[in-house]
């Protein structure tokens, strides 16, 4: 009867869904936690958060991931306390919970990559759960007797062994008193009756060993489950012992410990009162019995719903009535007290449409008053408690209509499983609004993208065809018709391309949403107070752009936090507000997305940068004297420059900004920095909206066509040959009042021929932006500007740095796209 292997195949669709959902939930939980930090008293946020954690815990319980479930469960308990107002939300609490969620995220990644959780995580998990619970014990205002939450049974077999009183009197008195004292300190105790199956020895089971290993064991006893036969008749291989245990473990742990024999154990949460009574007096016995009865499997459906708030409230009301009725004193006002209880019960019954209850309650009340004891009412209440619950469920199902129809269905499904503590998370809103968005595999979109790319290329063949029809076959009519058709297809293809681009568009919020956490954690680590302002989160750009933006942005934000913003003391001394502001702003400007990261920190000192760069040998002495402040600041993009005095674990290893720049350049973006000493720094990243279609200017040189990305083109100009001067080896021309170096494209590409002048003896010069310099490229002639889909060079061609890619032209020829930056 060993458990099934705990590593479900990664291809399991349920698991896949779980993983996808979990990531979303974790993200949501993190967000909510941080929102709560700003508004710690917002009850709806707390509820939301609790629900999310609860759902996640429930989901994880579907699989054998006890490590994950344990941590989530602890988190849920903690939040439950917060929700019930027993604990206040604090930063520390948020820290712990965030840690716990990080751990869960780690486990999720592990499951994703290996399909299972490494056994070594169990210890971490237990430790985390424990620390969460320890926090619970510390912050709980009243951790002692919690009538609402103490549904006393945790795990219970469906085929229940007959309910028996926990014979707590077996326990040595000293130990019992000790346990009672610890109860007062918020610890929970569980009574476990462990009745191993008679044939368990054949399954390789050693019950005594399992009993000894019970977590948190305080006390245990070994008893014969039936009078042991004389030695001569003893069957060695039939287990005829049972165990009684008292533990201070967590119920999750206990369930886990006995997970192979859940049907053989009865775990009962110990009411501190039970520990206090030395002998089970009849009255007490009755009460205990009732607790056990209400905890018996009959109430299992009720338990599966215990987290819906109404049920919890109902249970609480009923439990309180029970406690009132169980009171042993006989005050003069007993009669009034009983009537009050009866009235509460009647009202409850009425509100739930439980009509037949009224008469019964009256009768019990009369009996109770007559005997001057709460007993008759208590008996009635215990016998009919489940009626209340089931009516509540039915009622809420009616009210909520469709949405909770699902809930009831789920709960019906969940009922048999409730014994294992597995609960399906139900989210009513899942069903209500219907799926508005589709989740599509990126590969499918990419395929569409490729197809539309081909279509664009193919459609460009039509004008050539029209030309041929006219020139070669002399059918002018046909040519015109083809052109007409072409313009229609052209329009549709353009729109289609646009539509597909829209699909690929993602809001920058995908990247931005991780910053609140990053900024929070980092600034706390550094002891700085930082307010993060996010603007323009809805700005959209192509998925690839957005994704490649993440890392550079994180670098920049870390840099700003570490080097830019000062500690509160320093800021105060400078006359700035103690809390620094970090603004991350996204906006669309024409066909580009501009992202600015602005801090109001200490700014960059150009002198320091210059000195550093000189010391590190990045610039020579002459440059040191010559360069201006802005140029000096731009030096921070140079590789190997770090301005931090001390290398922290956050930044300052000198790999920051040059990596940022190359990452941004890789997606055809630019990055610029402005900084004012003492005022702050602003970094501006400009990115294309989409990488898919590149506008390219076609040029001709030595009879070949080349493409130059329009981003690089400054202007096209024709320069008379006489205006070109040679300064030493370099050619230059004065254009619009400034000296521009000229280079022949042929020379750069190693083509021996000279650029061809036109009939007016002018050379075609393409002014291009190469980095921060403007350069004139001498070519033979300019052609049209076209939009095309650039394909990276594959295979051996990949090494040709002069080209950034290639594209198919309408006539089927290949156009090579020049990479100006690399070429010059």
């Amino acid at each position, binding site marked *: 009867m060993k458990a099934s292997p705990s590593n479900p195949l990664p291809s399991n669709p349920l698991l896949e869904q779980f993983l996808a959902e979990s990531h979303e939930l974790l993200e949501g939980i993190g967000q909510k936690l941080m929102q709560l930090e700003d508004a710690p008293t917002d009850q709806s946020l707390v509820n939301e958060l609790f629900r999310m954690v609860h759902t996640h815990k429930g989901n994880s319980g579907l699989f054998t991931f006890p490590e994950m479930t344990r941590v989530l469960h602890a988190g849920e308990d903690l939040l439950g306390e917060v929700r019930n107002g027993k604990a206040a939300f604090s930063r520390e609490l948020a820290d712990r919970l965030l840690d716990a969620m990080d751990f869960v995220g780690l486990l999720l990644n592990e499951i994703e990559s290996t399909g299972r959780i490494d056994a070594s995580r169990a210890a971490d998990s237990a430790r985390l759960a424990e620390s969460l619970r320890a926090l619970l014990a510390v912050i709980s205002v009243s951790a002692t007797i919690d009538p609402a939450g103490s549904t006393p049974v945790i795990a219970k077999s469906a085929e229940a062994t007959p309910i028996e009183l926990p014979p707590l009197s077996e326990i040595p008195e000293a130990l019992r008193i000790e346990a009672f004292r610890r109860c007062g300190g918020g610890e929970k105790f569980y009574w476990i009756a462990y009745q*191993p199956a008679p044939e368990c*020895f054949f399954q390789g089971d050693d019950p005594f060993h399992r009993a000894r290993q019970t977590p948190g064991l305080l006390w245990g006893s070994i*008893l014969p489950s039936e009078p*042991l036969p004389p030695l001569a008749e003893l069957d*060695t291989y039939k287990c005829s012992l049972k165990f009684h245990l008292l533990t201070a473990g967590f119920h999750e742990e206990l369930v886990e410990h006995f997970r192979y024999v859940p049907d053989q154990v009865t775990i009962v949460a110990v009411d501190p009162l039970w520990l206090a009574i030395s002998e089970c007096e009849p009255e007490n016995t009755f009460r205990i019995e009732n607790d056990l009865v209400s905890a018996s499997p009959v109430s299992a459906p009720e338990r599966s719903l215990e987290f819906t708030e109404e049920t919890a409230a109902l249970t609480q009301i009923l439990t309180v009535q029970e406690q009132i009725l169980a009171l042993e004193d006989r005050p003069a006002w007993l009669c009034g007290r009983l009537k009050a209880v009866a009235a509460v019960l009647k009202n409850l019954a009425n509100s739930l449409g439980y009509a037949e209850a009224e008469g019964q309650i009256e009768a019990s009340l009369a009996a109770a008053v007559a005997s001057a004891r709460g007993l008759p009412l208590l008996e009635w209440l215990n016998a009919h408690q489940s009626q209340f619950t089931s009516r509540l469920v039915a009622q809420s199902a009616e009210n909520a209509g469709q949405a909770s129809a699902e809930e009831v269905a789920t709960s019906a499904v969940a009922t048999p499983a409730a014994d294992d503590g597995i609960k399906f998370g139900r989210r009513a809103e899942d069903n209500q609004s219907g799926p508005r968005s589709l989740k599509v595999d990126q590969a499918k979109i990419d395929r569409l993208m490729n197809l539309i790319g081909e279509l664009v290329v193919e459609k460009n063949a039509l004008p050539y065809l029209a030309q041929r029809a006219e020139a070669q076959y002399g059918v002018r009519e046909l040519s015109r018709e083809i052109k007409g058709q072409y313009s229609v297809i052209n329009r549709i293809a353009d729109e289609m391309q646009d539509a597909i681009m829209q699909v690929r568009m993602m809001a920058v919020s995908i990247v931005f949403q991780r910053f609140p956490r990053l900024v929070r954690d980092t600034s706390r680590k550094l002891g700085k107070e930082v307010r993060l302002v996010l603007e323009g989160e809805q700005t959209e750009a192509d998925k690839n752009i957005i994704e490649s933006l993440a890392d550079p942005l994180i670098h920049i934000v870390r840099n700003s936090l570490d080097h830019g913003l000062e500690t509160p003391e320093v800021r105060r001394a400078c006359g700035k507000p103690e809390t620094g502001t970090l603004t991350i702003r996204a906006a669309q400007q024409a066909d580009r997305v501009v992202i600015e990261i602005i801090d109001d920190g200490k700014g960059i000192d150009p002198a320091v940068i210059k000195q550093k760069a000189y010391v590190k040998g990045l610039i020579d002495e002459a440059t040191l004297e010559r360069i201006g402040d802005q140029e000096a600041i731009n030096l921070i993009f140079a590789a190997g420059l770090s301005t931090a005095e001390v290398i922290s674990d956050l930044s300052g290893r000198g790999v920051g900004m040059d990596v940022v720049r190359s990452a941004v350049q890789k997606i055809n973006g630019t990055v610029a920095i402005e900084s004012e000493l003492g005022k702050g720094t602003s970094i501006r990243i400009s990115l294309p909206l989409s990488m898919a279609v590149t506008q390219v200017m076609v040029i001709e040189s030595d009879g070949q066509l080349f493409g130059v990305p329009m981003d690089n083109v400054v202007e096209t100009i024709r320069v008379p040959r006489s205006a070109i001067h040679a300064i030493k080896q370099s050619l230059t021309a004065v254009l619009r009042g400034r000296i521009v170096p000229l280079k022949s494209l042929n020379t750069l590409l190693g083509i021996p021929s000279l650029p061809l002048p036109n009939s007016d003896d002018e050379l075609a010069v393409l002014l291009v932006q190469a980095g921060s310099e403007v350069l004139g490229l001498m070519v033979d002639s300019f052609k049209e500007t076209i939009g095309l889909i650039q394909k990276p060079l594959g295979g051996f061609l990949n090494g040709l740095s002069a080209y950034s890619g290639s594209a198919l032209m309408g006539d089927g020829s290949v156009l090579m796209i020049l990479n100006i930056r690399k070429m010059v």
Partner: protein
Amino acid sequence: MPIAFKKNRAVFQDEVSVEEAEGLLEWLQKRSAAKVDLSACSHLHTANLQVLMAAKIEISSWPRNIELRAWLEPALKS
């Protein structure tokens, strides 16, 4: 050998597995006044435990392992 059977004394050592129970039972059935030495025992399988309990046997030395002793003493002291 986890159980060393002396003349009238069974000496348990380390962990005593389920396989020993049969032999222990036979050994005990043949003797009316045997004693058991558990001092070096760290764990005994439930099967052995119930044999000892059924035999109401006298324990000559209790386990040195305090935790085990706490379990066994109430059960085996008769």
